[in-house]
């Protein structure tokens, strides 16, 4: 929201030219004794002054809020969505938002209305992308003055690592009883562990609950349906960090499209196995934030 202090206003190039023309008209009117020339000069000058207020007013008290920005893969374009809101009964015309090198198309904000402005910002690297300092500007109504205000949207966009785009690398094999690829099948009872959200209710040890124990989940060993572990340490030592993340991202995408549950193990961080799109996003987020 922009109040008194934050709006800057200066003449544009056309505004300066307008001033020069007014001076010409003034001297000409004096020289040729043109009373109407003076009337015109003063009228235009006064219109210039009035237009300063209009230009300023066109930005004043606009509210900007941030919408949720969907993550994208590195190399794509992050779309930042800003909601520009006009709580007053005065329409605003021809406003632009400028972030980095991107400028939005001019937009109007209707009286007592709001518009969503989307800015596409290139996202070359994985990580957290912030739009940085943005500029809200206008030249309405005459283009003789430009008003602008800065805003730093409290907004970010998560940039997933660019998935390695080679033909599908085989996923790591799921291994039973392996200390690395810890699987959780459902064939043979293997013991109890404490309940975690997402565990199937039919695996809860209800008898133990009945005896007053906390919720426990029964664990089974089996070969039929093993979880896949996507493990940082499994990758060849020759790969650097970004390449590894890229490979893991590919695996996450491939694994997420299948039915099997998968987990992700990064140095100092583990995403327990699960299936589906949510798990996929959880893993990709972990990859995006890795090392930051």
């Amino acid at each position, binding site marked *: 929201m922009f109040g008194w202090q934050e709006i800057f206003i200066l003449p544009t190039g*056309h505004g300066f*030219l*307008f001033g020069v*023309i007014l001076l010409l*008209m003034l001297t000409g*009117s*004096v*020289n*040729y*004794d*043109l*009373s*109407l*020339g*003076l*009337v*015109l*000069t*003063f*009228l*235009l*000058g*006064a*219109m210039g*002054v*009035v237009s300063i*207020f*209009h230009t*300023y*007013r066109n930005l*004043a*008290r606009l509210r900007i809020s941030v919408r949720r920005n969907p993550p994208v893969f590195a190399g794509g374009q992050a779309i930042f969505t800003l909601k520009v809101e006009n709580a*007053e*009964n*005065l*329409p605003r*015309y*021809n*406003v632009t938002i400028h972030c980095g090198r*991107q*400028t*939005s*198309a*001019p*937009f*109007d904000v*209707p*009286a*007592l*209305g709001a*518009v*969503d402005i*989307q*800015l*596409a910002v290139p996202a070359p690297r994985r990580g957290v992308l912030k739009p940085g300092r943005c500029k809200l500007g206008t*030249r*309405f*109504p*005459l*283009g003789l003055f430009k008003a602008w205000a800065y805003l730093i949207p409290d907004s970010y966009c998560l940039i997933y690592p660019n998935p390695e785009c080679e033909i599908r690398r085989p996923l790591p094999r799921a291994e039973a009883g392996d200390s690395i690829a810890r699987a959780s099948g459902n064939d043979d009872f293997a013991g109890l562990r404490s309940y975690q959200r997402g565990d199937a209710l039919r695996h809860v040890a209800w008898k133990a609950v009945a005896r007053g124990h906390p919720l426990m989940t029964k664990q089974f060993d089996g070969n039929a349906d093993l979880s896949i572990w996507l493990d940082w340490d499994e990758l060849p030592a020759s790969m650097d960090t970004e390449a590894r993340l890229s490979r893991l991202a590919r695996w996450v995408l491939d694994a997420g499209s299948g039915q099997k549950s998968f987990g992700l193990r990064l140095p100092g961080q583990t995403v327990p196995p699960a299936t589906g799109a949510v798990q996929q996003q959880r893993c990709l987020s972990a990859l995006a934030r890795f090392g930051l």
Partner: protein
Amino acid sequence: MARIQPATAIAAGPALSLPDVSWLLVSLALVAAPHALRLPLWIAPLAAALAFWRWHIAHRGLALPRKLALVPLVVAVTASVYLSHGDLLGRDAGVSLLVMMLALKLLETTRPRDAMLMLLFGYFLVITNFLYSESVSTALYMLLGVVAITATMINFHHGPSPAALRNTLRIALLLVAQAAPLMLVLFILFPRVQGPLWGVQYDKSGGSTGLSDTMAPGSMSQLSLSRATAFRAKFETAPPAQYALYWRGPVLWDFDGRTWSGNARQESVADRSYVAKSVPLRYAVTLEPHGKTSMLALDLPIERPRDSKLTPDFQIIASAPVTTRMRYEMASVLDYHANVDASDDELRRALRLPDNSNPRARALAKTLRSDSDSDRDIVDAALALFRQQPFFYTLSPPLLGAQAVDEFLFDKRRGFCEHYASSFTFLMRAAGVPARVVTGYQGGEINPLDDYMVVRQADAHAWAEVWLLDRGWVRIDPTAAVAPSRVEQGVTAALPAEEAFVLANFSEQNWLRPARLTWDAAANSWNQWVLGYDPSRQLQVLSNIGLRGASWRTMAVVLIVVVSIIVLAMAAMLLRQHRAAPRDPVVSAYRTFCAKLAKGGFSRQPAEGPRDFAARVAEAKPEHAAAIAAISRLYIDLRYGVLAERAAAERLARLVKQLKI
């Protein structure tokens, strides 16, 4: 809520669309149009053709011509302008060049930022129109032009909203209206400098109508066909009678047998002297520009306005040709003795005649001299001659040859004031009575709407002055001897019926008279207050508002203070918060209700619905139970039910107001 598609960077703005081009063309054409007939005939069609070409390009989505291709066109147009006007910098040449360059610039205008440039020069085009006319109608028309240009500029900066035309015009009018107070203050207070700052090369009044410095047979009768205003006068007291309204202009001393000419070289060394026999009459003259230096005043001026001189023969001569309307305060006496002590040089000059001209008139003069005892008798005898002989007053006199005075006096005997004044003065000089011709205006019409007297070109007149011992210069009007009604009622009355008809076409039609007087009065106020608002008028206005004798510095301070006040007021008005839509009256009434109960110790809990809340309060305050129940029920119906009547909402507000806890 609108959803805007993401856009890539926009560098110089989108190309001009067809509506954009149309806006641009229409607004520029509007302000250029009045020039069409004033400029060389090839300008308007060529400019129109270029504009049409640009429109065609936009209409068909064609490409603009390459810039290089325009160079020969620019050269050719510049050369044509030079050939048409003989220069490139004068008023007409400058306007021609500006119009043509703007028309050519159209062909390389692709984007709004180029178009903005053209619009800014469009404003400049507006002011060039005032070089030709500053009439009320021009002003109104140009206001239209300013609105159109402004609307076009707004159109280029308006953003994507639909329904642009109406909205754009509305904003343009709003800007003009909001600028008006500041404009007015600047116009009144901005320190005026008397122009010109550099040489003005043209005669602003166009073809000047008015008195010339010479008088030949026929020169005055031309003027008599013009209804144009020569000047206006406003008297401080009651104006003098019609027959006393002799407005003195150029005094003509030198005669070459046919033409009288003025005394540009002030040969006379005599001092100006006068003895007033009546109270000086005070009045203000507003003189229309006529391109000459002579300034009109009622016979006999005794003061001179600023920047002028009063000659020994009582002419007022401006220091520079009068090219703009000027206003000056004057004082005159109507009964006087002027230059009784005239020098011999002056009198010799008033007797000089070319040798060997008009022998018959000279012979007549000799007879007059020998038959009379005094100069006064000679004058009377000559006037009697004009009265008794068959002389006729007419606007279309026959042509006169080389011996114009002889032919007029003895053969044709039909003429206008210049014939009578000329031949009378000749007779006097030939008879040894010092005499001279005075040109000027006779008469004037008071406009009852604003009490201004209008003197028109048609009132142009010429008379004679003779110098008599003990009386000095005495005005003699020989025309009055022939056609007394000329002096008493004006030209139309004095003319024969068939000639008066020509004049009547533009004068006395009774049913038109009120309209003409109204228009005259309006034009006069415009002249006085808008066009005639010059440094002296400004000082007068400032002294009226208590700034008598204000210095340049005081005026600047006053200007800055007043402008600041206006700008601040404007800022407060324009930057104020525009209230959001009025809140739902139902909600606000219920809020008031809750606030009242909260004051009484019952605040509504976040989880408490209106019904439960009402039940809880009613239990504790049985005396208000009915009112509280009614309010709550009404609120629930209005807010959540189908009841949506204004009357019901008003009833709710009323009930809440009546509730006293």
